[in-house]
Each structure stands twice: as structure tokens, then as C-alpha cells.
């Protein structure tokens, strides 16, 4: 009895055999690997803008490295990992840069870097959206980003924006906790030229 049942099951399974390649194909597609890139520092830009006394100002970080694993066909396995050297901040004013490096703002002596790592990337109408965690000033918070990805000769271009509130990270102590003269909202923009890199 039991042998007969086993034989029937085997026969049914055998009938499904022609579908196996399809199944494997689908699995292979889901497992597509993203392409690994690094940002080319000379041709990449990472900046943020804040509002100070009612007027916008923009500063760039000269020192940052981005390890990007991305493929539009492999979003599940795509991942950004960005490390920013905060002391490299440049707002075209030495006094302001010094203040930002100081204990009451970035406090680079204690928190020399900021780190951003994504945990999911999805497609949107105009490009892609990533959710990820930003660690800044010893505090980790979710920061979503919107970005576009374009293949380029010899690599790719990754450009996008994010918005965050500086006080969520404790950036601005003492005098600078007030938002009277320095707004809480900060927008971040990046335009990275990516070159292939080992994973």
C-alpha cells in the first residue's frame, strides 16, 4: 500500500520535472548579484545645506568613502556603506568650519566619522529609495534617501538626497541647541561617480 502511494507521488513529481528549469531560472534571477563599486573621490561630491540666520549655506565633506553594491536587478542584495570624515567639512569659512568641528557641533575629537549603511532599497516612480541608518555624533537614526542610478562608461553615477534633523543626533550642544539662528533641518545631497571595486 505504502509503496504504491510513494510511486504515485513520484509520478506526480516527475510530471513537474519539465518546470524545473523555470524554477531554477527564477531562483537564479532572485539571486543576481549586485555590482560592487567604490566612489571616485576626485569626481564625487557629498554636501549638506543648512539655514543659518535665515540664509542657506552649503558645506562639503572632502573626505568620505562609499562602498556601493548595487544593481537595479538585484535590489535585495544591494547595499550602500558610506563613511564620512567629519573633520573634512568645508563651508568656505574657516571660522564656521572650526565651530562645526568643535565640541558643541560635530565634536570630531570624540566622533571623528559618520557612518551610513542601508538595509533596504526599493524602486520608486523616479528612481530608488533606500532606508538606512546614519550614525552621527554617537547616535544612530533612520535616514531615508532618494536616489537615481545611471550606468556610465567605466562605472556608474549615483546621485541623491536626504533630509534629517541635526538635533536628532545631538548635533548642536550649548548655544547651538537653539534653532533660532541655525535651523534644525539639514538637507544632504550627493553625486558620486562610481568605479568598479572588489566586493
Amino acid at each position: 500500500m505504502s509503496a504504491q502511494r510513494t510511486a504515485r507521488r513520484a509520478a506526480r513529481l516527475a510530471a513537474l520535472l519539465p518546470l524545473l528549469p523555470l524554477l531554477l531560472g527564477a531562483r537564479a534571477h532572485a539571486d543576481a548579484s549586485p555590482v560592487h563599486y567604490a566612489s571616485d573621490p576626485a569626481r564625487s561630491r557629498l554636501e549638506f545645506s543648512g539655514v543659518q540666520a535665515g540664509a542657506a549655506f552649503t558645506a562639503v565633506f572632502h573626505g568620505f568613502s562609499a562602498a556601493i553594491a548595487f544593481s537595479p536587478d538585484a535590489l535585495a542584495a544591494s547595499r550602500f556603506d558610506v563613511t564620512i570624515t567629519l573633520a573634512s567639512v568645508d563651508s568656505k569659512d574657516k571660522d564656521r568650519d572650526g565651530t562645526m568641528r568643535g565640541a558643541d557641533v560635530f565634536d570630531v575629537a570624540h566622533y571623528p566619522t559618520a557612518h551610513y549603511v542601508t538595509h533596504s532599497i526599493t524602486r520608486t516612480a523616479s528612481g530608488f529609495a533606500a532606508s538606512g541608518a546614519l550614525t552621527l555624533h554617537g547616535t544612530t537614526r533612520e535616514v531615508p534617501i532618494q536616489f537615481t542610478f545611471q550606468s556610465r562608461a567605466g562605472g556608474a553615477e549615483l546621485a541623491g538626497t536626504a533630509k534629517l534633523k541635526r538635533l536628532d543626533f545631538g548635533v548642536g550642544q550649548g548655544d547651538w541647541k537653539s534653532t533660532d539662528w541655525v535651523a534644525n533641518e539639514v538637507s544632504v545631497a550627493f553625486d558620486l561617480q562610481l568605479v568598479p571595486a572588489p566586493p
Partner: protein
Amino acid sequence: MTNDTAGARYGAAAKFLHWFIAALIVVQFSLAWTADDLPLGARKLGLLAWHKSFGMTILMLAIVRLLWRLGHAPPPLPAGMSPLERTLARGAHLTLYGLIFLMPLTGWMMSSAKNYAVSWFKLFTFPNLIAPNETAFAVLRNVHDSLSVVLLIVASLHLLAALKHHFWNRDDVLRRMLPFSKPARRP
């Protein structure tokens, strides 16, 4: 009032512009002197934000004032003034007119050179006049400071001269610029 010098007075617009700008200049000096002694911080930023907003207000009023002045001749100087006094008075007025333009303009350029754009009472932001440049900032700061000393001296002389006309010469020079005052009627 057959004599056009005795009764001629400044119009309401000229008076308003004169006194409003004068009051703003006093505010500007107090803000600048207070901010100068502070380290870079939120308080200094705040004071300088007011200084910039008032400064740009002065610049806008200066433009209005100049246009007004071109269409409205001021009352003539009293007949008894010597040629030297007339030259000094005209020179002082010309200098003060120049400074209500040059002070805001050099301040605006200073802000631009230091890459701190000028906001007008957080309502809108003026475009930067020049590119960020440390050397230019240092030069402009010296110019702005030096012009402020010139302004202080010439405005003080202007005030003393007006008082001298009023109390010494006993003419209409101060009264014709005072708000709400009637021209003196003399025999």
C-alpha cells in the same frame, strides 16, 4: 513767506527718511560693537543677522532717499553762511549720502566673501556679491571698519553743526528737519 530761505522746510518724506535712517545707524553701531566682543556663537550670529537686516534696510532706504532727493531740492542753506561753511556742509552731506550706500555695500560684500549670505529678517536672502575669499574678507572688513569711523566722525560733526545753527546762529536749519515742528516766524 516771501523769503524762500526763512520758511522753506524739508518735506515729510525727506524728514522720515532722514530720521529713520539716523535711528537705524545708531542701532547698527550698537549691534556691531556688541557683536564685535563676542566669540563666534549663536548670540553673535543673531546680533549680526539683525545688523545685516537693518543694514540692507538702510541700503534700500538710501536708494529711495537718493531718488527722492534728485526730484526734490532741499531748502537752501541760510543766507548768512560763509563759502567755507557752505562747502563744509555740502561736503558732510555728500559724505553721509555716500556712506549710507557704502556701509551696507561693503558689509554685504564682507558677508559674501565669508560665504554667509545676507538674509533680510529671515524673509528672503540676497544673492552673494562676490565669491568666498578670505583675503577679500579681511580687506573689506578693514574698509567697513574704517568707513564706520568716518561715519561716526562726520555724523557727529553734522549733529554738532545742526546744534550750532540752532543755538548759536538761531536759524531754522535744525527746526526745518525736526518732525512736527513749525517753521520759526521771525520779524
